[in-house]
């Protein structure tokens, strides 16, 4: 039950945040690609021809090259899927390098083990790279200072830097980074222990607003995404899988298909047995029919003539209505499996005067990132080269190598910008499909999923159910909690990926009487991490239920939430990724204050509050909502108050909070994936209504300057929103919404 102990559950993460923030020098050097030695890594950027060709400057380490003309090239190691990491990580390097941002050119780094964890998941790219990138920048700055000091024959301690310039103040001499780059790069790198880092008040870049490094390319339509890759002689493939998830190909009309216009070849991939599961490192392949053609359109068009007999004997037979029925029978009951228990919550609740018992549920949802999956693969002479948008780039090479049974060194991976990720691209299933297809063709092949493929063959945010019971004492204070998670499971032992309840630190850490139980519902529908896994749905349950309790206790919601946190403390001392009640109370109070909590509201309009902690972020949100007589809601404004420590790029951080609010509002309003007999029933946006511009609320974002090191922001601003909106709706209407999406309860926006 690992996921009960962690504040997050990116199933790919093995390096915990605590270890990462306390890397020893030895570990840092190892991480930087230098096997032995005393100093900061001094390593050639590996094997990518495009990188080598583009750079004529001096290489200082894995991240920094400086040209004689002053151009500073910084390699951004982690996948960019819209979270702004390609801009944010180089900002950290440039800050400690004391570079003028106008001199900086950013490129994606190659995919190489030298760069360690090249992943976009768990909101961890910034916190896990923070120390390493500061060292990379400060190390180069120290080398430049030493070189300039040597040139001027003055002590290094007298040389300062400012915006890519080296300065000796007393002799009024200045020289640019570019002018000493060659000399500096030949010096021995400094001892890591000797590096001097800036104090936050000395920052020139961090916390300022920097426009995204790819924005010029984006607004002019340059080829920049995975789907945009075009190679000479490239062919285009579609891949048709069984609509009933996990079905296998028995027979198909390949000869008819091969005769169609533009079709070059068509063949069956046998695939691996059983339904696909989240498997970014593995070798699983969903069976299907590949059609390789001269254009995307021809490969799509040919599918219309494809006839396949499927064997669904091992396929999913899931039906959403069955889950609903099973959960209804469990209403009010505990689960048979006890996951955590202290004191005697059932007795305390039973004896209490004021208590609440409710069942909540939420739907399966699809990632629906706007760029459907694609991957270009090229097989030649036992080498597989792939161009992909994986969020788990550092796992691509191993996965493809295992699949093809070739050495990992024979797999070359390129990272391209992804048109949205939201966790979907943490799985590498489509990359493996492309590799297998390319192995059968002697030119590069682009595998292109249709939107329908993308929505049908997702690794979904799992739907689920919670029975919630709790009581308050005679003073209206929360005193016992008994929750029961009813979760989907393929193996009957553990919840499927992202289907488990977590974290249970709150309110277990503050209560004497606490119990949590589990029931598993058999399910073969593939699930996976989806922006703020588990938190994205459980926060709605927890924070709506907390409001139910506040109402039952006749307490002000802000007061009740703040009181429930207790005294300021870390739930787990020394663990940066655990909830800090002081930081929680702070964001709750600031959000309430900014929103004007307590002021009289117009008719049919109210404020709703929610707080959630996940992925090391403490976030409170207040929603200002109107509800008309026909259950049409208007979300006028949302206040987001977040404590995620030091902000890297203020513009990107604010944008992520805007996006989290819109995404969460979109999802809670109208998004639902259902299945009948193993077949997904929604396949495109006409059945999956993403929120449009008309429904956007005004969004006020405020970051608390708490003095902590930075943590990630891709996820933690998402979870609180649904609770805030639903709590406001309750205050207006008295209707307690316990099911997502709320469209099913008759609400529109």
């Amino acid at each position: 039950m690992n996921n009960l102990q962690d504040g997050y559950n990116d199933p790919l993460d093995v390096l915990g945040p605590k270890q990462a923030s306390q890397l020893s020098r030895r570990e840092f050097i190892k991480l930087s690609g230098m096997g032995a030695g005393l100093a900061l890594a001094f390593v050639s950027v590996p094997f990518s021809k495009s990188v080598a060709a583009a750079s004529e400057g001096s290489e200082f380490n894995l991240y920094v090259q400086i040209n004689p003309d002053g151009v500073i090239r910084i390699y951004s190691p982690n996948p960019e899927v819209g979270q702004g990491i390609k801009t944010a990580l180089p900002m950290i390097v440039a800050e400690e390098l004391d570079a003028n941002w106008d001199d900086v050119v950013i490129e994606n780094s190659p995919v190489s083990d030298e760069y360690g964890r090249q992943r976009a998941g768990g909101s961890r790219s910034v916190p896990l790279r923070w120390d390493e990138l500061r060292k990379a920048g400060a190390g180069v700055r120290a080398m430049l200072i030493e070189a300039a000091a040597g040139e001027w024959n003055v002590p290094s301690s007298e040389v300062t830097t400012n915006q890519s310039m080296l300065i000796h103040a007393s002799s009024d001499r200045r020289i640019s980074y570019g002018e000493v780059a060659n000399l500096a790069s030949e010096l021995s790198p400094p001892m890591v222990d000797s590096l001097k880092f800036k104090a936050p008040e000395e920052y020139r870049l961090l916390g300022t607003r920097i426009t995204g490094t790819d924005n010029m390319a984006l607004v002019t339509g340059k080829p920049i995404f995975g789907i945009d890759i075009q190679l000479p002689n490239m062919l285009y493939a579609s891949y048709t899988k069984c609509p009933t998830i996990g079905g296998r190909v028995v027979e198909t009309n390949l000869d008819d298909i091969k005769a169609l216009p533009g079709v070059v070849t068509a063949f069956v991939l046998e695939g691996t047995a059983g339904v696909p599961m989240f498997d970014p490192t593995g070798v699983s392949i969903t069976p299907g029919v590949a059609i390789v053609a001269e254009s995307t359109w021809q490969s799509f068009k040919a599918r219309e003539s494809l006839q396949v007999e499927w064997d669904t004997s091992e396929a999913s037979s899931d039906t959403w209505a069955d889950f609903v029925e099973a959960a209804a029978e469990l209403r009010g009951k505990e689960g048979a499996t006890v996951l955590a228990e202290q004191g005697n919550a059932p007795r305390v609740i039973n004896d209490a005067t004021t208590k609440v018992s409710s069942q909540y549920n939420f739907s399966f949802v699809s990632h629906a990132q706007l760029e459907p999956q694609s991957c270009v693969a090229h097989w030649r002479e036992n080498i597989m080269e792939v161009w992909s948008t994986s969020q788990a780039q550092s796992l691509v090479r191993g996965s493809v190598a295992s699949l093809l049974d070739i050495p990992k060194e024979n797999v070359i991976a390129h990272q391209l910008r992804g048109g949205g990720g939201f966790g979907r691209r943490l799985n590498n299933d489509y990359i493996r499909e492309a590799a297998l297809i390319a192995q059968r063709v002697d030119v590069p092949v682009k595998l292109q999923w249709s939107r329908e493929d993308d929505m049908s063959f997702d690794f979904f945010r799992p739907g689920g159910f919670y029975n919630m019971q709790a009581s308050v004492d005679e003073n209206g204070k929360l005193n016992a909690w008994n929750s029961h998670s009813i979760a989907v499971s393929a193996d009957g032992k553990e919840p499927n990926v992202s289907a488990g309840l977590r974290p249970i630190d709150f309110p277990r850490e503050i209560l004497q009487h606490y119990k949590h139980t589990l029931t598993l519902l058999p399910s073969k529908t593939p699930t996976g991490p989806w922006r703020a896994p588990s938190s994205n749905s459980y926060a709605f349950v927890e924070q709506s239920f907390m409001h139910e309790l506040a109402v039952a206790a006749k307490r002000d919601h802000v007061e009740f939430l703040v009181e429930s946190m207790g005294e300021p403390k870390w739930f787990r001392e020394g663990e940066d990724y655990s909830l800090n009640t002081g930081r929680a109370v702070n964001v709750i109070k600031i959000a309430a204050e900014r929103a004007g909590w307590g002021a009289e509201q117009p008719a049919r309009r109210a404020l709703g509050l929610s707080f959630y902690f996940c992925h090391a972020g403490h976030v409170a949100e207040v929603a200002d909502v109107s509800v008309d007589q026909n259950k049409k809601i208007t979300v006028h404004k949302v206040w987001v108050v977040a404590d995620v420590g030091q902000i890297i790029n203020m513009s990107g951080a604010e944008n992520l909070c805007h996006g989290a609010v819109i995404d969460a509002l979109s999802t809670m309003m109208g998004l639902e994936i259902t299945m009948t007999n193993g077949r997904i029933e929604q396949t495109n946006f006409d059945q999956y209504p993403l929120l449009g511009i008309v429904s956007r609320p005004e969004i006020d974002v405020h970051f608390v300057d708490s003095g902590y090191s930075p943590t990630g922001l891709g996820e933690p601003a998402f979870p609180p929103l649904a609770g805030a909106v639903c709590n406001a709706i309750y205050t207006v209407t008295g209707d307690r919404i316990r099911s997502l999406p709320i469209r099913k309860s008759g609400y529109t926006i």
Partner: protein
Amino acid sequence: MISLSINGSTQSLGDIDPETPLLWALRDTLGLVGTKYGCGIAQCGACTVHLNGVPVRACQLQVGNLEGQDITTIEGVASADGTLHALQEAWIEHDVPQCGYCQAGQIMSAAALLAANTKPNDDDINAAMAGNICRCGTYTRIVEAIHTAAGKLDQGGTA
């Protein structure tokens, strides 16, 4: 042989199937990949281009029906000398994109709006942009950027 007028020049598509959607002809045949595939059923707006100045979804147009008509894609929005359209400048200034995949389509819809209405209010913007989904949720900044661009155009900026 089908030839189309795209961004002011005539482009031959060779012996392409006349039923081929403009979206795929632009991307695969002409290498104009700024126009994006999102849904294929005119629900997302990622493939928005201008047909005779009117914003349309390229996934719904067959190339066989388009000869002799003026098509503008995101690659043709800036001036030939590379000067950006006021909207493109505003998009960078406001740091609108997150993933950026929808933004070409957003800019095409906004450009058609500003060509017809130099001082749009929020309702005008909502109406013009309603068919363009941003999965990342950048709507706030899209609206701000359109207002900024409209202001610049009003003062004689580049369109």
